[in-house]
C-alpha cells in the first residue's frame, strides 16, 4: 500500500488493488459505495460474533458447572446404596464401599479431561473444578467413613493390639503335687 501510494504519487496512472479490504476498516480515501455505511456494517458484524461467542462461553460455563455438580447426584446415590448395604462386612457392602472409594479417586485423576471440552479463554473453570474436586472429596470421605463404620479402618486401639504377643514374665515358678 505504501508502495502504491508512492507510485501514484510518482505518476503511475492506475492500479488494481486485489487485496480484499472488506473486513478491514477502510483507510483509503475512496468513498464507499452509495448506501453503504461502513461504520454500521463494521459495528454489526463484530456485535454478532461477539454475541455468539458470549453465548458459547456462557453455555460452556454452565455446562462446566453442571459437570462439576454431577458428583453430587452420585454422592446421594452412593449414600443410599451404603445405607442399603448395612454395617456388616460382607461381599456386597465391601463392593459398594470400594466402588464409592474408587469413583471419586478416578474422577479426581481425570479432572483435566472432564473439563477439557469447556476450556475457553473466557470461561472461568476454576470454580467448577473446585466444586467438582470438593464433591468428589466428599464422596471419598463418605467412602472412608463407610469403611470405618464397617470396621475396616485401623482407628481403634483394638486394631493395633490384636496381634500383640503376651508379655513375658520375669519370674518363673514350677512344681506341684509331689510325684
Amino acid at each position: 500500500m505504501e508502495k502504491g501510494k508512492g507510485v501514484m504519487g510518482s505518476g503511475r496512472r492506475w492500479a488494481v488493488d486485489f487485496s480484499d479490504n472488506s473486513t478491514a476498516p477502510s483507510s483509503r480515501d475512496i468513498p464507499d459505495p452509495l448506501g453503504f455505511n461502513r461504520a454500521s456494517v463494521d459495528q454489526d458484524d463484530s456485535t454478532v460474533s461477539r454475541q455468539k461467542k458470549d453465548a458459547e462461553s456462557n453455555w460452556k460455563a454452565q455446562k462446566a458447572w453442571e459437570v462439576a455438580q454431577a458428583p453430587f447426584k452420585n454422592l446421594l446415590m452412593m449414600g443410599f446404596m451404603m445405607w442399603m448395604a448395612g454395617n456388616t462386612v460382607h461381599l456386597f457392602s465391601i463392593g459398594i464401599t470400594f466402588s464409592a472409594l474408587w469413583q471419586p479417586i478416578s474422577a479426581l485423576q481425570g479432572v483435566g479431561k472432564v473439563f477439557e471440552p469447556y476450556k475457553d479463554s473466557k470461561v472461568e473453570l476454576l470454580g467448577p473444578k473446585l466444586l467438582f474436586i470438593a464433591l468428589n472429596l466428599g464422596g471419598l470421605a463418605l467412602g472412608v467413613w463407610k469403611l470405618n463404620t464397617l470396621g475396616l479402618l485401623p482407628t481403634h486401639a483394638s486394631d493395633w493390639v490384636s496381634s500383640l504377643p503376651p508379655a513375658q514374665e520375669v519370674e518363673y515358678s514350677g512344681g506341684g503335687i509331689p510325684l
Partner: protein
Amino acid sequence: MAIRSFFVPFLLLVLWFYSSLSPVLSLYEDQVGLMDWHQQYIGKVKQAVFSTQKTGRRRVIVSTEENVIASLDLRHGEIFWRHLLGSNDVIDGIDIGLGKYVITLSSGGSILRSWNLPDGQMVWESFLQGPKHSKSLLLLPTNLKIEKDNVIVVFSNDRLHAVSCIDGEVLWKKDFETESFETQQVIQPPGSDLIYVVGFAASSQFEMYQINARNGELLKHESAIFSSGFLRELSLVSSETVVALDSTGSILLTISFQNGEISFQQTPISNIVEDSSGPAVIIPSSVPGIFAIKINSVTIFIRVIGKGKLEVVEKLNQETAVSNALPISESQQAFALVQHAGSEIHLVAKLAHDWDANLLKESIKMDQQRGIPHKVFINNYIRTDRSHGFRLLIVMEDHSLLLLQQGAIVWSREDGLASIIDVTASELPVERDGVSVAKVEHNLFEWLKGHMLKLKGTLMLASPEDVAAIQSMRLKSSEKSKMARDHNGFRKLLIVLTRAGKLFALHTGDGHIVWSHLLHKSEACQSPVGLNLYQWQVPHHHALDENPSVLVISRCGPSSDAPGVLSFVDTYTGKELNSLSLDHAVVQVIPLPHTDSTEQRLHLLIDSDKHAHLYPKTSEALGIFKREFSNIYWYSVEDHNSIIKGHALKCKCTGEVADEFCFDARDLWSVVFPSESEKITATVTRKLNEMVHTQAKVMADQDVMYKYISRNLLFVATVAPKGSGEIGSVTPEESWLVAYLIDIVTGRILYRVTHHGAQGPVHAVFSENWVVYHFFNLRAHRYEMSVIEIYDQSRADNKDVWKLVLGKHNLTSRISLFSRPEVITKSQSYFFTHSVKAIAVTSTAKGITSKQLLIGTIGDQVLALDKRFLDPRRSVNPTQAEKEEGIIPLTDSLPIIPQSYVTHALRVEGLRGIITVPAKLESTTLVFAHGVDLFFTQLAPSRTYDSLTEDFSYALLLITIVALVAAIFVTWRLSERKELQDKWR
C-alpha cells in the same frame, strides 16, 4: 436396585447361617481310619484259663490287672470279647464252669458273675455278702454235684458259699465263728464230698475246718498252735498237706491234716539247703508233691516225700516262673517252668511226680526289651501221634503276653500299652537320603495302577470293587507311616511310658511301635519304677544334627524318698544314652524355660529335703541358671494337710559334700486352707508348651480387653472334707466347692469363688486366661461345668491409638509379678449331662485357631466341645454385634452334638488321659487318648482353613483351568478375525 434389595437379605441370611453353624467335626463313613487309629489292649494278665474243647474255637480266658476279662483267640491272640469292670470291682478269680460259662469273682469277693463263653454275654450275677472283709477264693470242683447241679465254692467276706453253676443261686453258706481267723486255702479233695478250709488265727494258730460239701455242715474243727508263728502264705502240696514258713522265714513247716488230725513237721531250711542265707518266701503254686521257695534270687524246688520228709530237687539261679499243675491224664499232672537266661528263655515242662524226666525242653530267643518272665500258664494238646504237646502262655516283665508252641512264639501282644503313665511327643527325622527307614518306593506298575484307580474314582467311573480298592489304598497309604517328618507335622512319634517301666515309640500315622525300651536296671537299682517323661533335648535350628531325647524320671522302689534314677533315651533309635542313679530322691521336677547351646533343657529336681538340684550338670547350664537364679521359684502342694507353699532358691547347699549344682531353698509364702472346711482335690496349671497368639481380646464394639496371661497361675479346687466321698454321701448344706486362682510366685490369691452344694470329683483344664472345671451340683442333681476368664484391668487404659501405632506402649515388655496386677474375672456355669473322666484342650502351633475342650466321658468316648459354649459373655439375648462376634445365646446346659464325638463309633475303654500335640499346620492338632485302649486322631477345631481338604476336587480345578485356557484361545482367535474384517470394510 431391586436386585440389590433382594441380594442384601440373602447375603445376611447366608452369613447368619454360617455364624450359627458350629464347626461340627463329623466324618464321612469312608474317612474312618484315614487319620485315626484305635488299638485294643487288655493289660497285664493275672490269671488265664484255657478252653480247648474239640468243638468251637480254641480260646483262652484271661483276667488282668486292668480289670479286664477277655477271651482271646489261641491262634492269633485276637480279642473275641472283652469286658472292663469298674476300678472298684477288682477281679479276684476266674474259672470256666461246665465248659461253657466263664465264672468271675470280683469286688473283694462280693460279686460272682457268669458269662457265656462263646460271646461274652452275662448269664447271671449274684451278690455274696458276709460279716467282714477277707481273702476271696474261687473254687470250681469238677465232679462235685448237689442235686445234679454243678457247684461253685466261693470263700469271700469270711463266709463260705456254695453257688449253683446254672443260675447263681446260693445253695448253702457257712460262717466261721473264730475271731481273727484268716483263711488261706479252701481245698476240695477230688472224688470226696469234703471241703477243707485252712488258715491262721492270731499269728500262731493253725485252724482247719472240715465241711460237708453237700450241705455246708461243719464236720470237724481242729486247731493247733505253733509257738513261733507263721508267715501268711501257704503252699498246697497235696489235698491234705500244706507247707508254711515260720515267722522268721527259716523253718519249713509241713502241716498235714489227714483224717482231721493236724500234725506239724519242722524242717529248718539250712538242713536241706546248704549256704542258704536270708529269709525264704514261698512261691504260690499248686503242683502236687512239690513246692517252691525263694531265697534272695534263688528259686529252690522241694519235694515232699511222705510223712513230711523234704528233699531239694533243684536250685535255679535265674529268674523263674512256675505254672500251676495241669492234669494230663488220670494220674499224671504236668507243670511248666520258664527261666530267663540272657537273650533266651528256657521252657521246661515236667511231670509232677517225676522231676528228672522232661516232657518238653526248649529254648526260645526272646527280645531283651521284654525283661524276665513273670507268669506262665500251661495247656496241652494231643499231637497226631497221641503224644502230649504243650503250649505256654507267658507274661513278661513288660506286661506283654506271648503264646509259645513248638519252640516258637506263635503270637505276642504288647499289653503294657494298656497302662500308660505319661506321654510326650517327638519329631521324626528330617527326610534325607538314607534317613527314611520305611520302604516307600514300589514298582512303577503298581504306582501307575494306583493312580489310574484314583483317576477313575474322581471321574466317578469306578466299580464297587475299585472303590473298595481305593479305600484300602487310602487306609494303607505308605505316606502315612513313613519314618520321616512331613511338611504339615502330622507324622510324629508318641513316646509313652508304661507302668511296667517300658518306653514305647508309637508312630502317629498308624500307631505301629517304632521301638520299645525297657528301663535299664543297674546294680544300684534293681526295680526302677517309672514316674514321668520330660522332653530333654528338642533340637532345632543350630543343633539339628543331634537326635532329640527324652528324660525318664524313675524311682528306685515304691517309697517316695527312694533315690531317683534319670534315664536319657534317644527318641529316634530308642537307645538309652545315659542313666544316672541319683543319691537323692526326686519329689518334683521343674523343667525350666532355658536351654543350653545343645538345646538341652535345664531341669530342676527337688528332693525330699527341699534341696534343688540342677540338671544337666554342666558349667554352661550353671552359668545360665546363675543368671536367672533370683527369678526362679517353686511351689509345693501338700494335699494331705491342705497347704500350698512357695519357695525361692537361697544359696548353695550347705551339706558336707560341696556340690555346685545343689541349692538350698527358703519358704516364701504359704496358703493354708482351713482343714476343717476345705480339702484340696484338684490343682491345674497351664501346659508349659502352650502357645498364646495374642494378649488382647477384641469385643464386638471394637473395645479391647487384655487377657491376664501368666504361666505362673495355679487353679486350686477345694471341697468340704465331708463331701470328698462319693456323690450323694452328703447333703447339699454340708458340701461346697471353692475355686481359687493363685499366683505361684507371690502366693497372691487372685480370685476365689464358692459353689455351695457342690461336690467333687473336680476335673479342670487351664489354658490361656481361662479355667474350665467340672463338678457335681447336689442341689440340681446334675453335673456342672464352670468357666473363669481372667483379664488384666491395669492394661485396659492402653487405648490411645497413636501411642499404639507408634509402638510407644509397654504392653509387650517383661513384667514382674511383684507389681500388683489388677485383675477382673468373668465366670459362668452350665449344666452338663455327662460325668467326666478327663478334660483336655486342643493346642495348636501358634495358638491362633479357636479352642475346643476334649472331654473324656464316662462312656469312654472323647467329646469335642467348642470353647465358645463356655464363654462367660454369653447372655440370653445377645445383641446383633455380639452375635456377629460369635457369641451363642445362653442356655442352661451345654449341648452334646452326637457328631462331635472325636472317637466316632469307637470306645477308648478305661479312658485315663487325653493329650493334644500341635501339628505344624496351624489349624490342626493331634489328639491321643489312652486308657486300656489307645486312640489317635487329628482335629481341626476351626476346620482346615489353611489347607485343602482331602475331598477337594482337583479334577474340577484342572478341568476349569483347561476350559478357561481354551476359552481364552478361542475368543482371541475370534476377535482377531473380526478386527481383520473391520479393517477391510
